[in-house]
């Protein structure tokens, strides 16, 4: 049986594939663990499956009560807002990390450990 795919059903799985390849690429470059890459694969895999086969959501519709398109749009908007908040939290955390790096570097510089090490070696 041949079914016609909408552009949405083509683009979303493609994005998911790119995201999954990217996650495993990061893993190969040792910037992500296998575990994290697996989590990303499951996450994007589910999104791709739902995009291709929206019928799966019938179950969710029954559970959550999201029946109309307006409700679905609202739920999506909330999801996007959550993602934006998460991204901002990460940004704030990165700024905190920068500040921490400066404080740590200052502590090490002030302790003059290089000189202390050389002194110990001379002894």
């Amino acid at each position, binding site marked *: 049986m041949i079914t016609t795919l909408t552009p949405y059903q083509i683009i979303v799985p493609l994005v998911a594939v790119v995201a999954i390849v990217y996650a495993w690429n990061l893993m190969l470059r040792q910037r992500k*663990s296998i575990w994290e890459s697996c989590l990303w694969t499951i996450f994007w895999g589910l999104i791709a499956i739902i995009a291709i086969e929206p019928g799966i959501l019938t179950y969710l519709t029954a559970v959550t009560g999201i029946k109309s398109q307006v409700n679905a749009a609202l739920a999506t908007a909330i999801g996007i807002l959550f993602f934006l908040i998460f991204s901002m939290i990460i940004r704030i955390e990165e700024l905190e990390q920068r500040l921490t790096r400066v404080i*740590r570097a200052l502590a090490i510089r002030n302790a003059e450990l290089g000189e202390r090490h050389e002194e110990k070696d001379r002894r």
Partner: protein
Amino acid sequence: MTPAPRIVAVLPAFNEASRIGSVIPEAAKAVDAVIVVSDGSTDDTAAVSRRAGAIVLEHIENCGAGAATMTGIEAARALGASIVVTLDADEQHDANEIPRLLAPILDSSADIVFANRFGQRNTIPLVRRVFNHLGNVVTFAATGLWIADSQCGYKAFGPRAVREIAIRMSGYEFCTEIVREAAQRRWRIATVPVKVLYSAYTLAKGQSFANGLRTAFKILLRSFLR
């Protein structure tokens, strides 16, 4: 002949002037040098530590246990340390157990040694047991590695771990990050049961429930959005 490894103890400390003075001499018996990182302390932690013979580094602001530990490890590297032991500055950990913690590293069977407060009979409050177990579950969810006491600050790092470790998380979540490092870099892991000495003082300084939740949230979020 291979030179003997230089072993350094790292004590991250925040306002521990009343306790740290007794921890340093005990730790010094088992290591070549003791480094104290005073993490924005407003009391005499730094002065007391210097008097007790430790090398002191001072954070001008409180950054958290993770940041202080990483500063200590970096300082230890600068001093040429090949093995690093980290322990709490509040007398919670028995410094006399450092040799037991070092044994798996010295016999080259492990790159990192985690102390396990639940591996022997210890008087640990129920709330602490539950929190630590939750910490283990969160750590497992984020790293895929089960460590019996992932949130304990008492650890020993072998030469490979000292060379490779890079903690980026500043707060208490650094314990989970260390497990992540161990999993990702495929360090050989050993666990050693230790004694733990809880007092009203150490319990009061511990993490609150809200802080624990925040830590768990940060760990999961970071591991997912990394």
